[in-house]
């Protein structure tokens, strides 16, 4: 398992080539993600947001990998990569709106190379392969971009994982398959998900490389991901482009706000993994290098709080989506039947008033 920092933030591997600003940015992104996550969970508790999948504990893997991506690379997320999405340019407000049940939160800006959230487990993996494959074909076999796809440990059991990775091997697509092995698929532990010793070794079935990395070590994740992305874009003679990365980590919280992990796992386990928390780990490293001190940390914390508060205000200030929008974007052009349904719906709202619906 590749590691750069040990649990105390001491260097035990090759530190990647990141300058101070970048290292601080990495730290700040992790702090932002953690704080965002805590606030999002509490919004749910307060009934201000629907079901939300927390990411605390997984910041190292998300931020480390997302920062390793080049501007033209693409990210294909599952549903938990809010932190990675921020790095790629997606606003926190949009993430909030999405989990507030508003499709517009998923309206990714044209210049942002992020794909939509995928809820059916592993179903985004063939998409990622297809996107990378399209790009390879469009570039005449000489791709400039790599396509990084996130999924969980549980996802490796699905047929779509298998088919997506197998296509990637056969068509040698510029993909990085990034498995956030957070030890649990809801209540099912990693050991009951598959009998293979590591998840990374599953790559052998597809003829390409699998790498296991400490997912709570953002520097190690950065390095491993950067190498995999570089290989995807421009492999050495005889190398296949794709890589599967298994980032070993832990979700500190519940699977989603609808889940109660105390039913199926021991607090002791959580405590053990909290010792690997990526944030204090990078913080120690940066303090050791005199890149961070109390003042800077406090300033970062304050700015992070402001940023999240502003995003929440913004999301909550956004008007509800127009009910008629339900009939839009079904087809490029509405079918006659759909036009009729939309018109009847408009009449119905007219007749009863929107409150008749919202009361339910």
């Amino acid at each position, binding site marked *: 398992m590749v590691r750069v920092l040990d649990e105390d933030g001491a260097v035990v591997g090759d530190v990647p080539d990141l300058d101070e600003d970048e290292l601080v940015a990495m730290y700040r992104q992790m702090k932002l993600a953690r704080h965002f996550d805590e606030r999002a969970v509490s919004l749910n508790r307060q009934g201000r947001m629907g*079901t939300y999948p927390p990411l605390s504990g997984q910041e190292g893997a998300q931020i480390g990998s997302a920062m390793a991506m080049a501007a033209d690379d693409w990210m294909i997320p599952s549903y938990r990569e809010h932190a990675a999405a921020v790095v790629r340019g997606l606003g926190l407000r949009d993430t909030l709106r999405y989990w507030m049940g508003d499709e517009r939160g998923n309206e990714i800006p044209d210049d942002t190379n992020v794909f939509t959230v995928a809820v059916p487990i592993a179903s985004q993996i063939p998409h990622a392969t297809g996107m990378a494959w399209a790009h390879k074909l469009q570039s005449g076999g000489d791709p400039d971009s790599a396509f990084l796809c996130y999924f969980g440990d549980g996802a490796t059991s699905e047929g779509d994982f298998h088919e997506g990775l197998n296509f990637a091997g056969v068509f040698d697509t510029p993909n990085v398959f990034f498995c956030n092995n957070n030890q649990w*698929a809801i*209540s099912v532990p990693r050991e009951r998900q598959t009998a293979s010793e590591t998840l990374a070794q599953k790559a052998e079935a597809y003829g390409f490389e699998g790498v296991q990395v400490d997912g709570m070590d953002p520097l190690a994740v950065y390095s491993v991901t950067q190498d995999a992305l570089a290989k995807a874009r421009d492999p050495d003679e005889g190398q296949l482009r794709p890589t599967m990365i298994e980032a070993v980590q832990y979700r500190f919280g519940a699977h989603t706000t609808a889940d109660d992990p105390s039913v199926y796992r021991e607090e002791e386990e959580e405590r053990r993994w909290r010792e690997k928390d990526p944030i204090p780990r990078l913080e120690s490293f940066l303090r050791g290098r005199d890149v961070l001190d109390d003042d800077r940390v406090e300033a970062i914390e304050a700015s992070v709080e402001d940023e999240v508060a502003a995003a929440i205000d913004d999301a909550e200030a956004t008007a509800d989506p127009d009910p008629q929008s339900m009939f839009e974007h079904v087809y490029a052009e509405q079918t006659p039947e759909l036009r009729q349904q939309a018109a009847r719906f408009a009449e119905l709202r007219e007749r009863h008033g929107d409150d008749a619906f919202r009361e339910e």
Partner: protein
Amino acid sequence: MSTQDRATAATQSLTLVQAVRDGLATEMARDDDVIVMGEDVGENGGVFRATEGLYEEFGDDRVIDTPLAESGIVGTAVGMAAMGLKPVPEIQFSGFMYPGFDQIVSHMPRLRTRSRGRFTVPMVLRAPYGGGIRAPEHHSESKEAFYAHEAGLKVAIPSTPYDTKGMLIAAIRDPDPVVFLEPKLIYRAFRGDVPEGEYEVPLGEAAVRREGTDVSVFTYGAMARPTQAAAEELAEEGIDAEVIDLRSVSPLDRETIVESFQKTGRACVVHEAPKTGGLAGEITAILQEEALLYQEAPIQRVTGYDVPYPLYALEDYYMPNEARVADGIREAVEF
């Protein structure tokens, strides 16, 4: 259980999801061949707690957490059933049945035919289904029409705790595969009396929830409640609606459906599934095939729209509600 027994049996007051659990526990205690399997059904007791405590009661050989793989779940259950077990796999949400769709339509219902009866598939595929609980994308599907179109499957959708337990027991005992869809909007919406111990509510039989003479309203699942409410509301206006809860969407209880329509001559079908290709069309076709001469007005379809189910900010606009159902019934009556 005879009527006699039922009258004397102790009853509990359970929610619909508790009735699921009670039905499973009852059959598991009675029949060792019944096993429960699926994602998070074990220690976690299911994400809706439908299998709560079963793991502790029956052990991990009979209440089995599987890997995250729906085709694997259904496919291995088919194999288990062929060997004489009675697996009751849970798919976490009906929107996640699709990765297992090939096993559901190509094998579950066809092994009996294919082997001329040598191998059979006495399994029940359970899934919470339908909208209305502010869930994420794909968690609100109502695609029972897919399964009703596949010969060899039965499809049951209860709407009360009593029916839930009785139909689930009937489904488990049924020698054929049953898709058992549980309206999660009403998993905990209310309680109902549920006898302790075993009883069956036979599959294929609709229930008349309200007798009426002016119009027949056919519905099932979570839509039974707003439909009954609308019928009561309309009764005050002098419209006497008969409300029929289909309970089984395959096979349909054609007899009850047609008889009611012969009485009223008017009908409205209510479901939350999208309109085009939904079961309201099938029911309409049956009515006009069997009882056109009784028909006095177009049969109204009050259904979901032909759009992907919206994220929850708009779901209340998508789901048929009491106002829409009442409008539909009125249109059928006032034509």
